[in-house]
Each structure stands twice: as structure tokens, then as C-alpha cells.
């Protein structure tokens, strides 16, 4: 009998400690302050009509309830040194800019699945009035939550669906890819470039194409090989993919994944690579040629200011690039010859003042079709739906022929 009670006690303790761990994990996301934000949106505003009325209606709400609470949902850990790291840097810039007028919080590693919906609802119930979702996969969950909560403002990165209280925003990452390509084209000795792709969506395909176009602008003989890992963040797999590209003869690598693994692998093999999303010089100084970085701060500051001023508008598509200071190529290595550097600066200046366009015809796809006619420039709609490789990229975009 004694043993029995001892045993059940021990089991109880085991399950209890498990529950405690689970609760601890839950608590870190809670911090309930129950801001009794009465039904401030008496929804007299016909949310479907002009968006200015929505902005006007929500303005007094923010003024009444202290600092504007802003929440961020991240797909990766803030410590990824890449995509999520860049978003979190912008969040910090936001706090610096507005001080105690705002209050920010974030939840990291939110999966691109139904779980995201719960996180968004959670954020709204904690009194956050401006919510950022920083990956494509949050589109549908966010759309659902936004439709239910018209008085909360939603900002979705890299998507394409909007609502009167939901905007989409993105950065022209392909401009950074193009500039990196210019350097890659000049630095390759084997005329073979390698790209580790994450998931074959238009954004990534566009980056691979732009990278290749940039390389071809200085070296027409260049060809690009692509390996997909079908994940955004998996360092061992990114390493393996980079290794296989190097084995195949590529000597300058680029990646559209979220960690610095590709750069590190290039460093180990004595090849070159680029930093992506964040400045990655420190990871492999000898292999690092430059970093194509995204600076989300200008947009975050702008949209937060709009929300504070009551001029925030929904249904907006914002796509910022070099011109607005959202994209840059930084920390160019000393190994890059001066003339290449000059070329990059020229491209950058051209993108800034609008005198240079990357997607200007004639551009042909790798199966020989002319996709952008000579003399014309591709519009954003075209860029948003790219599902082909340009000439010089080997292989086919997975799943492209199904559409």
C-alpha cells in the first residue's frame, strides 16, 4: 500500500511538473492587462466604403487608451540572423522612434498554419491595435481575424489580399538580389552560380531571376543552378543544399533561406556567397561578398505614425525598395574589384532616382519565350506572378506548368 501511494504521488509529481512547464510556456505569451477597451468601435462606420472614414473613426480610440499597442508575429526565432532578425530590428527602431507613445510585443516561431489565427486573436484580445504578420503564410488566418475585428489594424508582409483594416507591404528584395548578381557575375570563375531556394513562390523565383539578370549584365556567359529545400529555416538542410551546388561546380552562392548556413558552407569550401536579409559579414568574412539587406524600419515607422495620427488607411499595397531606403546592398567585401563596386553603385543610384529598371525588356525565359518585350518595363502585377526562370537559369520552376 505504501508503495502504491508513493508511486501515484510520483506520477502526480511528474504530470504536475509537465503541466507547470506547459503553463510557464503559456504565461510568457499572456501578460493580461485586461485593458477594458469598451466596445469603442460602435461600427457605425460602414467598413466597406471609403477607407478614410475608418481611419477617422479609429483615431480617437488610440488617443483614449494610452500608448498604442503594437504586436508582431514572427515565423522564425528572432535569433535567426536573417529574415526575422531584420523584422525585429525594425521593431526596435520603432520603439526608439516613438518612445512611450507605443508599446510593442512579439510572438516568435508562429507556424504558417491554423495556429497563427489563434495568435492573432490572442494579440487583439490583449489590446493590440496594430498587428504585423511577417510572413506570406499568415495571409488567410490574418484575413479571417481581420474580418472579425474591424477596429484592429492589420499589416501583412509579402501577401496580396487586403481588407479595409488590412494592408499588405513588401520589400523589393529582388533589387538587392540584382545588385548581388552584378558582383557574383564579376567574381565567378566557373561561370556557374548557385542559389539555395526556399519555397518556389513568385517572390523567390523573382529573386533568382533578378540575381541572374544582374550577373548577366556583367558576364553574359553566366548560368545559375537552383536547389530547393522547401523550407525557410533548416540550417543542416541548407548546408547540404549549398554543398551539393558546390559539388556541381558553382563557385558563388546566393540563398533565399533564413539562416547563414549557405554562407558558412561556402566559407568552409573556399567559395563565395552573400548575406541575405541581414548583414552577415561576421559569419564568414572570407566568403562574404556583400549582404542584400532589408530595412523594414521606414515602412513600420510610416504606418505607425499614420495609426497614431489617425490617417491610417486600409486596402493599401506598399512595395518599397532602394528608393525608399527599404533595400540596400551593404558591407561589400574588399575582394570585389573597384570597377564592380562602381557598377553596383551606379545601379543603386539608378534605382534610387528611377532612371534604371531591372525588369526592362527584352527579357526571355529559359524556354525561349519573350516575356518582357523590348522597350517595355514589367509592372508590379507581372512581377507579382513570376513563375518562370529567365534565360541562364537551369531547370524549371517546380509546379509552374500546372498553372
Amino acid at each position: 500500500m505504501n508503495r502504491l501511494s508513493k508511486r501515484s504521488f510520483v506520477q502526480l509529481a511528474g504530470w504536475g511538473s509537465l503541466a507547470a512547464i506547459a503553463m510557464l510556456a503559456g504565461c510568457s505569451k499572456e501578460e493580461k492587462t485586461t485593458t477594458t477597451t469598451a466596445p469603442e468601435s460602435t461600427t457605425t462606420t460602414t467598413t466597406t466604403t471609403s477607407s478614410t472614414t475608418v481611419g477617422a473613426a479609429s483615431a480617437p480610440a488610440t488617443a483614449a487608451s494610452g500608448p498604442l499597442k503594437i504586436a508582431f508575429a514572427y515565423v522564425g526565432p528572432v535569433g535567426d540572423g536573417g529574415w526575422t532578425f531584420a523584422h525585429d530590428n525594425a521593431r526596435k527602431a520603432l520603439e526608439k522612434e516613438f518612445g512611450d507613445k507605443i508599446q510593442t510585443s512579439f510572438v516568435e516561431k508562429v507556424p504558417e498554419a491554423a495556429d497563427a489565427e489563434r495568435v492573432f486573436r490572442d494579440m487583439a484580445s490583449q489590446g493590440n491595435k496594430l498587428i504585423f504578420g511577417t510572413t506570406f503564410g499568415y495571409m488567410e488566418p490574418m484575413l479571417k481575424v481581420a474580418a472579425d475585428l474591424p477596429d484592429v489594424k492589420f499589416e501583412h508582409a509579402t501577401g496580396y489580399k487586403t481588407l479595409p483594416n488590412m494592408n499588405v507591404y513588401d520589400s523589393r528584395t529582388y533589387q538587392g538580389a540584382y545588385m548581388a548578381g552584378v558582383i557574383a557575375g564579376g567574381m565567378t570563375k566557373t561561370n556557374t552560380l548557385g542559389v539555395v531556394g526556399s519555397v518556389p513562390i513568385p517572390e523567390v523565383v523573382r529573386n533568382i531571376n533578378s540575381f541572374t539578370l544582374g550577373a548577366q549584365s556583367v558576364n553574359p556567359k553566366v548560368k545559375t543552378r537552383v536547389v530547393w529545400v522547401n523550407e525557410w529555416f533548416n540550417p543542416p538542410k541548407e548546408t547540404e543544399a549549398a554543398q551539393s551546388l558546390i559539388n556541381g561546380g558553382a563557385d558563388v552562392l546566393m540563398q533565399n533561406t533564413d539562416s547563414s548556413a549557405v554562407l558558412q558552407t561556402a566559407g568552409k569550401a573556399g567559395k563565395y556567397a552573400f548575406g541575405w536579409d541581414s548583414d552577415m559579414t561576421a559569419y564568414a568574412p572570407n566568403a562574404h561578398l556583400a549582404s542584400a539587406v532589408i530595412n523594414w524600419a521606414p515602412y513600420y515607422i510610416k504606418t505607425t505614425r499614420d495609426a497614431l495620427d489617425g490617417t491610417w488607411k486600409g486596402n493599401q499595397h506598399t512595395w518599397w525598395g532602394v528608393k525608399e531606403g527599404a533595400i540596400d546592398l551593404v558591407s561589400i567585401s574588399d575582394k570585389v574589384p573597384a570597377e564592380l563596386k562602381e557598377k553596383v553603385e551606379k545601379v543603386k543610384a539608378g534605382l534610387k532616382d528611377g532612371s534604371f529598371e531591372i525588369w526592362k525588356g527584352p527579357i526571355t525565359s529559359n524556354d525561349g519565350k519573350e516575356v518582357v518585350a523590348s522597350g517595355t518595363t514589367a509592372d508590379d502585377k507581372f512581377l507579382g506572378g513570376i513563375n518562370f526562370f529567365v534565360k541562364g537559369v537551369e531547370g524549371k520552376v517546380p509546379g509552374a506548368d500546372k498553372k
Partner: protein
Amino acid sequence: MEQIALLVAATLNSGTVLAFAALGLLINERSGIVNLGAEGTMLVAAIAGFATAVHTGNDWLAFGAGAMAGAALAAAFGVLVIWLNTNQYATGLALSLFGAGFSAFVGIGYTQEKLGEQHAFRIPGLADLPFVGPAFFRQHPMVYLAIALTIAIAWFLYRSRAGLVLRAVGESPESAHALGYPVRRIRLAAVVVGGALCGVAGAYISVVYTHLWVEGMTAGKGWIALALTTFATWRPARVLLGAYLFGGVTMLQLQLQGQGVQVSTQFLTMLPYLATIVVLVLISRNATFIRVNMPASMGKPFFPQ
């Protein structure tokens, strides 16, 4: 030809991570204890090894630190499930979650850290042979150690008295206990050794394989190792074979993609899992064989009378 040599080399490298972890889990499970905490253990060992490598610059100390971290976590797990008889599966899962969170927490400061440049390892003389040189003899010493370890474990399990006792404990702890063997201590030792080997695998990932630390970086390798142990029916040679098979098909599918082969990449991504399962199921399809090899007391608590 050169392509194939490089593919073989990459396969050995990739399989080594899984081999260490799965061999550790094999010893672990041979004693009758299932440790689902492998993934978390590997993550904690990865940061322990990485931090050690950053501060000392010595890879071997880093592997030692990884092994110690793994052993420490496994010891805690062992005390819980062997003496306090907590549920093995629940405790293992808790350990996995704890390891993921704890490693992320202590690793915050190391995300931006870098390790010194790595020099390529070569076996003098052999490394310069055509084909076999680049394929087999330019590997990190740990790759050869994994093979040596497999042989050592096979010998230990089937040729040594201590191995026989370990298997007896896993088959029938009651009988072993009746014969006077300290079942609980033997099990703890097996769990600790298993944890240490998972730790070596974790440190290998961060220090040698990817050469970086980011949280959650093992990305499921621990779970694959657990599955591998089962599909290889707890036989050391098959575990090693499975590890190389998994690594090989992973590298092959990436290589095929790089060559522009027109197969859906999603299908190719699935291939390593599929191929490993199919092959290991085929070689182990004999039901009696599985029953003979599977430790009979696995997952069950033991109360000495």
C-alpha cells in the same frame, strides 16, 4: 566520376550526425528505456559545444562539452523514469521541449558568434588517390569515429559479457534483477551513454556540420534518429547503413535538383524518408526477427520486488 566521389563524401558527412545520435539511442533502448528527448538533448549539446568552440577554439573540447551536456540531461531523465517511474514517453517529450527552449535561451548571445576557419582534414597518402581519395579520405575524424563506434557497439552487444547483461536488462528486467544485476543502475548507465552520444551528434552539427548556432537548428534530426533506431531493428550495422542511406538520398536529391532534373522538388524532398523506410522495412520484414531484436521491456516501467 568526380561528382560521384563528392556525393559519397557528402553522404558520409551527412550520415555521421544521424549515426552518432541513433547509435546512442540504440544503447539507450537496448536497456529498455525510450528517450524521446533526443531532439532537445541535441540542441542543448549543440549550443554547449558551440559555446565551447567559440571560447576555446578546440573542436575536441567542444565535442566533450556536447557529450557532457547530453549526459547530464540524460541523467536527469534517467533518474525521473528509472527511479521515480514517471512515464517514459511524457518525460521524454518534456525533455525535448525543455531542451529546445533552454538552448534558445542560453544561446541568444551566440547567434552572431563565429568559429575560426576550418581546415580540411586529409589522411596523408590515401587522400591523394584518384576517386577514393576525395570520396573517403578527406573527412572529419568524427566520420571515421562513427564507423569505429558502430563496430565497437556491435562487439559490445553481441560478444561481451557486459553487452549480454545490458540486453538481458532490456529483455527481462525481472530476470536480470533476480540474478542479482543492478537493473536500475545499468539502465541509468545506458541512458547516460545514449545521451552523451546524442550530445556528440548535436555538437557535430553546430561545430563541424553547419558551423553556426541558431536556435532550433537541428531541425528534426533527433526525431529522424529515433525513427532510424526502430526501423533498423536495434542492430548497430543497420543503424549505420540507415544513417548513410538517409544522408545519401538527401544529398542525391539535392544534387539532382542542381543538375536540373525535371522531378517535382516536393517529391524529391520526400525521397530520403521514403527510401530509408522502404529499405529498412524490406531488410527487416521478418516479423520474428523484429520480435527477437526488439527489447521486450521497452517503454515499460520496472519495479524491483
